[in-house]
């Protein structure tokens, strides 16, 4: 059965998963159109600073009097964008690396997997901190050189390096599956018929990996989302006036003081992020139960 049909059937059979899929789709839609519907600009400063939630400002306002609802939805856009593009990077690297390693087998496989092992035992996010902090100027220059100066350099750095930290699990899983699949009759048969390696990999192997790719895709998105927020929290993510959930949460945490509680600054962006992460993790787990051939845990 096609992967798509299995996914649909799983969603219909498990209303919980349907709800999670609904939440994810709503957040994506809100991120896309939401900032235009609130009637405020995400960067517009006003005199009404640090107002608690009201009818005019549903999520209240921040230190600079900016509408927090608009900023949270705009932040969602940034967080989702980094997560989606970063996942694409991680997917491309992980799937091709895993497929090549499993398909080649032997010495190549053992060397490639040893490299994954080493990378697994390094503090990858900490290295990303160094890379993002030091490579900002060169990337800015490179972007301007390519007439892409309007793209924030931090965005490019986050997408590339976060994508490059989260591909290891994907590569391992794909390699394992490739090892199993390549021994099966249909692959052996096409190899015997003299199919080129490339065609064999893309036309025969890849479609049979789509289920498992989808599962780990769903689980990589929240992982990169947390990573991005982590870096933004430490001041190494997107820069003001732009916002992501991470920078908003950092602002909320920074506003903690013993006199006055600005709880909305933290609760709304943090809550929205947690809800999205929970829905995505739930969805990934549920899909793994049905699509991962290694069986249900």
């Amino acid at each position, binding site marked *: 059965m096609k992967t798509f049909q299995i996914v649909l059937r799983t969603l219909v059979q498990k209303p919980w998963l349907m709800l999670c899929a609904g939440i994810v789709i709503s957040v994506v839609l809100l991120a896309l159109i939401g900032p235009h519907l609130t009637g405020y600009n995400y960067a517009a400063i006003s005199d009404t600073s640090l107002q608690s939630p009201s009818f005019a400002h549903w999520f209240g306002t921040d230190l600079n009097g900016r509408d927090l609802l608009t900023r949270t939805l705009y932040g969602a856009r940034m967080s989702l964008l980094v997560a989606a593009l970063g996942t694409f990077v991680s997917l491309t690297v992980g799937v091709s690396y895993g497929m090549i390693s499993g398909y080649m087998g032997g010495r190549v496989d053992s060397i490639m997997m040893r490299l994954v092992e080493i990378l697994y035992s390094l503090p990858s996010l900490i290295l990303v901190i*160094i890379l993002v902090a030091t*490579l900002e100027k060169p990337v800015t220059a490179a972007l301007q050189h390519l007439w892409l100066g309007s793209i924030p350099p931090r965005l490019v750095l986050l997408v590339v390096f976060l994508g490059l930290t989260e591909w290891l699990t994907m590569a391992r899983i794909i390699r394992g599956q490739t090892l199993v699949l390549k021994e099966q009759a249909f692959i052996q048969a096409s190899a015997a018929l003299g199919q080129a390696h490339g065609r064999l990999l893309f036309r025969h192997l890849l479609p049979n990996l789509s289920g498992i790719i989808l599962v780990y895709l769903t689980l990589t998105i929240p992982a990169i989302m*947390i990573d991005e*927020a*982590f870096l933004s929290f*430490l001041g190494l993510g997107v820069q003001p006036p732009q916002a992501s959930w991470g920078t908003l*949460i950092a602002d909320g*945490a920074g506003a903690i003081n013993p006199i006055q509680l600005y709880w909305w600054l933290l609760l709304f962006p943090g809550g929205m992020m947690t809800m999205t992460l929970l829905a995505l993790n739930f969805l990934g787990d549920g899909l793994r139960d049905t699509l991962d051939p290694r069986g249900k845990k």
Partner: protein
Amino acid sequence: MTTLILRRLILAIPTLFIVVSLTFLLMRWAPGNPFSNERKIPPEILAELEKQYDLNGTVTSQYLRYMGKLVHGDLSISTQYRNRTVNDILAQALPVSVLLGGLAYLLALMIGIPLGAYAAVRQDQKADRLAMLAALLGLSVPSFVLAPLLVMLFGVKLHWLPVAGWGSPDQIILPVFCLAIPFAAAIARLTRGSLLDVLNLDFIRTARAKGLPEEEVLYRHALKIAILPLISYSGPALAGILTGSLVIETLFDIPGIGRFFINSVLNRDPMMSAGVILVFSAFLLFMNLVSDVLISLLDRRVKIE
């Protein structure tokens, strides 16, 4: 076994070399210098400072001198905390971070294993579903959301616990708890899955068949095997705790390595950054080796070539 350990140790040296070199060179090649963050300083003074911190000449020569000192165990002087060597700072900050991370890992095990076992024994019952929902929630709430929320609640609102700081026992509770939660959740899920696998094995059936009470089957036989995957998980878990401690130490103003590291990167302190990266990477490589050796000693099914 000996070849495994030897090969890993030999492989660790080039890995550490690459990581430290990359950090030092990136920090020096990147625009901006560690001595003039905000205000401009006269070129003569800058030159004098660079000479004093052994950062004069070409980047390549600085790098070679740094590596020369490094092989003798000298991590040079921090440019940001003037007059203090990186060795000195690490010696002071390391115990703090080890205590924070160690306690968090211990707490994660103490919450995770019982929760996972409890859920596994009641597989597909309401209690299981609830425990696993809690675990998934624990995995989904980032520590940088959980920690400030708990600070607001218990620190600012209720005045039960201090908002920040380090030293007294009550200052340890919140940071350790916030650091531990995601890993407790992951350990609970791992324990549950592994215990369910073990409970289906033949020797458990035999144990039940010879009439052992269920508790004994569970605690004396099943759980002992079921926690083996946790040893393999300890590598990634420690890496995660290390990374998580950056946020927790910043948030709670804890004088551990994580906070020094973040400051050193933001202030372009090449010595401090490279030194911390070296310690972090060496620690994780070593812990991964230990866990691989442990698992091959304890689990007869695992064969390491």
